């Protein structure tokens, strides 16, 4: 493939949460090794659209630059992924950048992810330290096999790519989405986290919980961290079914 003279970007912009989105094109001279974030940084320094007009710089979020924080998730040529890990070399042009469509746009490519954090709070995606036990004792042992399994789920960075791909997750649904469900799987399997297992399961057995999954299994296809989300959902299907039977017959 011949090296292009420049990169052409088509960016979906929006000035505020309540105004209509519009498309704007930008050009950047070619340089090897660029990724989408470094290109956006160039456009911040040179906020001139392809018509030659000086415009407000494109707003986006980023943080770690190594695909572990989840902040720069956006649609790159229609694919939900981390902008920092999207290398420009090899991307078909024009490079189309859009905010994730399932969340409220704050400005341009910046979105409001608070729904994900509300979901994490709802399912108590944490380990209680103050649980009434003796905290000076050694932490309970976890087998290496279980450590390996849990590690996969601990890589979640709440980027929202799985929600973007999920047909059940949208602005009019109450579904909490795949990522928070996987955190229930993670924290339920921790020896101390298991103290709150029942509460976590009850939190996902109502409306918007595990039952609202349609098993399209797009989440596991697009997850940039290759988290076995559908395995977590299957295991939670088992845990919630057992919990439901316990609630019915063993209370």
């Amino acid at each position: 493939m011949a090296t292009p003279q420049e990169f052409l970007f088509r960016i979906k912009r929006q000035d505020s949460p309540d105004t209509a989105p519009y498309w704007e094109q930008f050009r950047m001279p070619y340089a090897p090794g660029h990724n989408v974030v470094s290109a956006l940084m160039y456009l911040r320094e040179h906020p001139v659209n392809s018509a030659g007009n000086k415009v407000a710089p494109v707003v986006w979020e980023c943080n770690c630059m190594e695909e572990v924080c989840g902040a720069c998730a956006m649609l790159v040529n229609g694919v939900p992924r981390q902008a920092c890990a999207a290398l420009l070399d090899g991307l078909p042009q024009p490079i189309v950048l859009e905010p994730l469509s399932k969340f409220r746009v704050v400005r341009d490519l910046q979105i409001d992810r608070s729904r994900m954090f509300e979901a994490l709070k709802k399912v108590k995606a944490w380990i209680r330290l103050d649980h009434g036990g003796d905290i000076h004792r050694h932490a309970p042992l976890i087998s290496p096999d279980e450590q390996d399994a849990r590690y996969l789920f601990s890589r979640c960075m709440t980027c929202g790519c799985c929600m973007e791909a999920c047909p059940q997750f949208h602005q009019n649904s109450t579904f909490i989405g795949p990522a928070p469900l996987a955190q229930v799987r993670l924290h339920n399997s921790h020896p101390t986290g298991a103290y709150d297992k029942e509460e976590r399961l009850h939190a996902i057995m109502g409306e918007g919980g595990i039952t609202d999954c349609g098993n399209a299994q797009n989440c596991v296809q697009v997850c940039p961290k290759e988290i076995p989300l559908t395995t977590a959902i299957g295991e939670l299907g088992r845990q919630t079914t057992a919990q439901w039977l316990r609630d019915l017959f063993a209370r």
Partner: protein
Amino acid sequence: MADSLNAHFLSRKLHSLTGLVPVGGFLLFHLWENSMARKGEQFYNEHVVQGIGDLLNYKLAIELCLGAAILFHGVYGLVVWWQGRSNTRRFRYGGNLRYLLQRITAFTTLAFILWHVITTRIAAGLDEAVENNLFLHMQRIYEDPVNVVLYIVGIAGATFHLANGLWLLGINWGLTTHPRAQKLSMWACTALFVVITFLGVHAIWGFNQRLF
């Protein structure tokens, strides 16, 4: 009590149970009994319609329960359908396509069942001539090639909905959690789909053996 019952969770579980046991079970039985149409008019009318009909105790109660199960599965299914926003154009994965197909076949099956019940069970209830010779009645329906196509599409939609629904049930009830288990159950459900669709097509052929 209300809390331990968990109405939302119970409805979802009932939705998958009603799809499998009364409705799916009846579909299997119904396609099997009608695949005996190949044995001819006399055998079908005497042994299938009369014979199996005589064996069924509490026939009206069974029919009412079946109707209630289909009604619940269908109406609650509409609620489930309403919650989804299919995105197969953007995400072209097999699972996503089956997600969409499960919803499309829900509607084709509902429409097909309505049409089928009105033109067979209710027609037989209204017209004694139809009731006395259901074989001839079916044969006449299949004289129109449009009806043959509608029946094949209707039956294949229903069998897909059942086979794929069984695969979904395995995940939702936590029987198949690992990708490997889900892959194996996919093979099993595909085999089920092929076998029961064959039974259905065989039944259509049985009524009008000049068809194929």
